[in-house]
């Protein structure tokens, strides 16, 4: 239990560091800064939006609004009404986050499909019908975590490490099953 959680902790910290690092590296990307000036209608000129790739200190109307739609003395009046906002983003972080998120989601979905659809089929292939009926009796089709692993682990000899993983996984399944029972069937918690 303890070493496992240490590992998870360490890996999580690594992920955080990686995210922060990518973010720091990408911050200088020129795509990632903008100065956006919104100028409302003035006299007979229509309202307009200007978007430029300039640094914070250049983010004023005079630098960003190009070409200037008014002449000479009107420039100051026009620029007073414009609202310029300097914004930063980090496209690397966005890209990284979305891709990491999608891959985690994808893995979870695959695992879910495996547990709910493939495993019962595999079980049927491996052990025929008699055992299937037996295990179906006590867990039912509703439960994706049928006792398949009991059967699987009995039938094969594994190395020690694999056994440990198997054991942990089995314990986890039991826990989830217990949780599912109390949340969805008995409605004792979280209703």
């Amino acid at each position, binding site marked *: 239990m303890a070493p496992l959680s240490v590992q998870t902790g360490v890996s999580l910290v690594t992920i955080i560091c990686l995210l922060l690092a990518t973010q720091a590296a990408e911050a200088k990307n020129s795509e990632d800064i903008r100065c956006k000036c919104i100028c409302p209608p003035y006299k007979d000129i229509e309202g307009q939006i200007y978007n430029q790739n300039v640094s914070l200190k250049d983010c004023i109307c005079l630098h960003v609004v190009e070409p200037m739609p008014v002449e000479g003395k009107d420039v100051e009046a026009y620029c007073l009404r414009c609202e310029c906002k300097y914004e930063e983003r980090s496209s690397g972080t966005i890209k990284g986050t979305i891709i990491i998120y999608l891959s985690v989601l994808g893995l*979870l979905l695959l695992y879910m499909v495996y547990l709910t659809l493939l495993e019962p089929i595999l079980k049927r292939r491996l052990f025929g019908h008699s055992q299937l009926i037996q295990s179906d009796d006590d867990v039912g089709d509703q439960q994706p975590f049928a006792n398949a692993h009991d059967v699987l682990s009995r039938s094969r000899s594994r190395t020690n490490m694999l056994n440990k993983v198997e054991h942990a996984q089995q314990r986890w399944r039991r826990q989830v099953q217990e949780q599912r029972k109390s949340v969805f069937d008995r409605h004792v918690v979280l209703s």
Partner: protein
Amino acid sequence: MAEAEVISNATPSEEMNGAGNLMDFLDEPIPDVGTYEDFHTIDWLREKSRDTDRHRKIRKRRKESIWEFVKSLLDAWSGWVVMLLIGLLSGTLAGVIDLAVDWMTDLKEGVCLSAFWYSHEQCCWTSNETTFADRDKCPQWQKWAELMTGHSAGAGAYVLNYFLYVLWALFFSFLAVSLVRVFAPYACGSGIPEIKTILSGFIIRGYLGKWTLLIKTVTLVLAVSSGLSLGKEGPLVHVACCCGNLFCSLFSKYSKNEGKRREVLSAAAAAGVSVAFGAPIGGVLFSLEEVSYYFPLKTLWRSFFAALVAAFTLRSINPFGNNRLVLFYVEYHTPWYMAELVPFILLGVFGGLWGTLFIRGNIAWCRRRKTTRLGKYPVLEVIVVTGITAILAFPNPYTRRSTSELISELFNDCGAFESSQLCDYINNPNMSRPEDDIPDRPAGPGVYNALWQLALALIFKIVITIFTFGMKIPSGLFIPSMAVGAIAGRIVGIAVEQMAYHHHEWIIFKNWCRPGADCVTPGLYAMVGAAACLGGVTRMTVSLVVIMFELTGGLEYIVPLMAAAVTSKWVADAFGKEGIYEAHIRLNGYPYLDQDEFTHRTLATDVMRPRRNEPQLSVLTQDSTTVEDVEMLIKETDYNGFPVVVSRESERLIGFVQRRDLTLAIKTARQKQDGVVSNSVVYFTEDAPQLPASNPQPLKLRRILNLSPFTVTDHTPMETVVDIFRKLGLRQCLVTRSGRLLGIITKKDVLRHMAQMMNQDPGSIMFN
């Protein structure tokens, strides 16, 4: 304390007995002793004294060697390290959730062709093709209909967009509910009622586990992006607490002590709110006011640190690209006037009424779900509610977008740059200069159009939120409640504004609104309304005002917010004392002792077990019970602990022993210690007497005996007993009369008694 004493006493007695293996057994702690079973309550006093022991041991050893000194330093620092890690992880996760929600919400409408991972706003971020009139259109971002058929307008495109919007929503919510169902059923709901219960000393194994953390984070994104009327704030508190629990397991100081662990979890809850609202101080106060049970000053500082680190981490991820922590951050500096307090208080009344309606309706619906066949179809329920939500939400532009965006628009003041419908005021052509701000102008058709759309959105949100909260997906209610309040507030704000415009001559408006001056800020009304509604539902006051104040960054609005929050609390309290979280705690029958006063005049003897005609209390004697007797007692009863008395005749109390510890100790002794047989006598005394060699080896169990059980006399009023249970976090309390043991009162008995006194069904309280 008991253990330390035993440890110091153990050696001489062992030497006297000359039993080497007995000494081994006593020296190494019995595994799992001092832990609790699932759905049990912890004994705060015992946890506290265990921590004191541990601390004393470390202090004593630190002078022995450098390594021990370093270890003691590490121990002292571990609390802060845990806080740092919690802050980093929960801030990062909040950032991931924000970014992913942003992207996925927009995925329902269209896709960014230049880079699929950009949301609508990010897609058009660098685009120069945006125009003043159509500010969020750019060629890179294409709606689904445009992408598939090439037409961006027309009935066909609308229907196709509509259809795909509903389809995506259904897909997201189906994924969310199936992931929750398959991997972590505990990840559903908001989590705050359960966390409240856990922090008060209840054990729900796996509730804060790694799988719950992973699944809750992943499905929260799906649930929020599906457009359901729910928010991410409550679940973020749960996520942060899962982080807290995860890092607790790195340090034995926290992983082995349930009381210390709860201190960390309190701080983690603060970090959760801190990232949810970008309000570190509000988060700390939320943890103090709403979730925590035991909150010493040390925890306050640590929560503050964790909340700051979390907020800083989120800020450096910058998920919204506005250098703020929330989407609906606002900043205005327009003043408000005394007379406006009247509409603010009215909004408070509305908030209170909404809170009452929501709590009643939601609890009634949840009870239905819990007791009838409805609860058998959690997946179908989610699908149906999502379907209805999506179908009704799409036609109305105010419900189609994400709720956070809606709140953001409602909070915003109309500047000259706003293109939204809400800011469609008629410009006065006679004015020499076009207005910079939009004070004091008649509303244009756009505003009236927006008003009835908002009214429809209000009704829709009110109804659908009642049915959404409590479904089997992660769902928080802060955002929907705030949306309801913000819509109502904005409507009231516009009404007051137009009234002020059309009736300058009225006395109240005469001093307040001079022609041409800025006098009513509808955005402020929206904010006050949001605070009122949130207050009505959760019954927060201080933390709510601080959260809202941190959202706006302006001290001048504290009085309106306070007025609304307090009014809403008064109104809601008039209809029912419980906030939504307490109501859910009671619905589920969690053993939670709330802070309300107990005013009935009953005595300890009325509540204690055994009652008058019940069999006698099961007790152990200190030196005459055999192992077999103990095993029989454990087998035949299901009590969680047994008092130990001097002898059955005198019934003088010497201590209390937990069932779990007793079972484990006997099991371990039977396995590891030779000579312990069924006939062995169990000793709870300091020294086992010298026995003839023919007798079986005695079993010494003083180590697991709690020598300082809490006792009250039989005539103690229950008021005091309830107070003792609440303040000290007891699990059980023994009742004596002139030194003789009479009976026992457990937390369960107290809760049952309280339920009985309030005319509720005492059998509903969950307790093992």
